[in-house]
């Protein structure tokens, strides 16, 4: 039986389209300070390992690891960066704890993406240099292609995806962390300007900026130090084959396999066994595709989104896309919900939650985490 791991504190700062008053480092410091206060830990003595999820190209700084320690409390302590989505960084935290390397681990992820003047240039560098980059088709075009295939295969209609957008934007209005809430008519969504048809303007999450820190501890440590935690019942990440042209359109492996592994670890049966789900919706159709990957058919999926059981936060469409902090944001929303502290969009007293992330185009990498309280 592997050692239990739990979340003992969360902290965040920002959640705006552009943060102009603090630097990246200051943003990280503010989020970390709040998380450590929430967990009642002193990072200088209580935290054994610090992880930061970041990608050098988004920072404009090579070997970003070197500039991380001071602002997360990790000066002259074990610090590493994981160039991946926040939930994958959390996977490293779980490994540090289970391997006995650490009892308490801090996982930071942030987006200061407005500092990147030409985001397309960074996105294009992620495309295959021999085959794709030369065509001039960017990551939104890849989404358009996939959306087209997914709609044809699944029977999802324009109206269906517009309902997703409408519901998430509306939900975001009651979430203080959401930058892109709004009241939209279905027609407005369906008639919006095309990006790469069938992908239209509102089908894509806009960028936002935020800092997030989640503190993990072994359950043994948490018990000994009398901290209430949110239990991590399962965590996994997977990549599908790296060829964009292939793969399962209805149930991409990175999502379905990460989910399957998490369910096995958590000893749970289906997505239906969770009180709430925060599922990747970088693009509107992606939410339906990811729900399909975890076994939720179209009809129930749309209903669950409209009821607010899926993405009560308003998702990325409502909150904004936070690059590598996107998965961390989903975990943050789940943890706040499970502790009854989600604010305006709190959903009763949920006991279990699932977060699922995707690293965005052109990747086929995703991660999932199952959380619970009061076991």
């Amino acid at each position: 039986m592997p050692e239990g791991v739990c979340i003992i504190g969360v902290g965040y700062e920002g959640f705006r389209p552009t943060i102009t008053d603090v630097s990246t480092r200051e943003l990280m410091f503010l989020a970390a300070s709040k998380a450590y206060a929430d967990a009642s830990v002193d990072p200088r003595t209580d935290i054994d390992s610090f992880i930061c999820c970041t990608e050098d190209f988004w920072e404009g700084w090579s070997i970003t690891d070197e500039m991380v320690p001071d602002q997360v409390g990790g000066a002259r302590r074990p610090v590493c960066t994981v160039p991946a989505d926040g939930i994958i960084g959390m996977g490293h935290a779980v490994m540090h704890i289970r391997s006995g390397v650490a009892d308490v681990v801090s996982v930071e992820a942030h987006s200061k993406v407005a500092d990147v003047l030409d985001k397309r240039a960074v996105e294009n560098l992620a495309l295959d240099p021999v085959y794709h980059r030369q065509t001039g088709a960017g990551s939104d075009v890849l989404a358009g292609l996939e959306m087209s295939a997914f709609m044809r295969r699944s029977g999802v209609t324009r109206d269906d995806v517009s309902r997703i957008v409408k519901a998430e934007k509306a939900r975001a209005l009651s979430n203080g962390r959401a930058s892109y809430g709004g009241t939209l008519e279905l027609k407005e969504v369906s008639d919006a300007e095309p990006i790469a048809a069938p992908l239209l303007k509102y089908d894509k999450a806009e960028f936002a900026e935020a800092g997030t820190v989640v503190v993990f501890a072994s359950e043994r440590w948490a018990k000994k130090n009398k901290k209430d935690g949110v239990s991590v019942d399962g965590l996994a990440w997977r990549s599908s084959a790296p060829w964009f042209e292939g793969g399962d359109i209805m149930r991409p492996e990175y999502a379905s396999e990460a989910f399957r592994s998490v369910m096995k670890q958590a000893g749970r049966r289906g997505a239906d066994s969770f009180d709430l789900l925060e599922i990747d919706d970088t693009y509107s159709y992606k939410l339906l595709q990811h729900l399909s990957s975890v076994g939720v058919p179209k009809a129930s999926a749309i209903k669950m989104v409209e009821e607010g059981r899926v993405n009560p936060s308003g998702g990325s469409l409502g909150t904004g896309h936070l690059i590598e902090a996107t998965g961390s944001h989903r975990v943050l929303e789940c943890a706040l919900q499970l502790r009854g502290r989600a604010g305006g969009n709190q959903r009763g007293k949920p006991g279990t939650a699932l977060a699922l992330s995707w690293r965005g185009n052109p990747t086929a990498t995703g991660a999932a985490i199952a959380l619970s309280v009061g076991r």
Partner: protein
Amino acid sequence: MSSKIAKYPGTEVELDDLRSGRFLSSDYETLLRYSWTSGVAVSRFLDGLKSGEIWGKKCGKCGRVLVPPRAYCEEDFVPTDEWVRVRDTGTVNTFSISYVNNDASRRKEPIVVSVVDIDGASPGMGILHLLGEVEPKRVEVGMKVEAAWKPKGKRRGAITDIRYFRPRG
């Protein structure tokens, strides 16, 4: 080549072979542009430079004066509250006489790069900058220096508002 190797095996490739497409390759060029938010600490520091002043921040816990200023003390993990104006003079902590530019090209005339410990800041708080108005061979560790500022109208809130540090009086 070396005393043991007169010729490498294989086929030599000249630049023209690549240019003419004799060997296949994929080329790509890009331009990455960033505009980093300076934030609370750096903004005030840069603003100070514009006025010909060097500012630091003091940690209320350990009492260190951090230059350049930081919004937090990394040792105590607390916000730094108090702004402290330090002197624009200091001491050469270390220096290097550089004959290479940062693109690795050679320089005819060397530049003298130094870490200057600023007067009024805590030990180990220095600024990496150039030394000027001094013969490279006369520079030594421990030398007292002062900032040579750009004229007021030419300062724009950048570390280069200090042209260099030069020997004091």
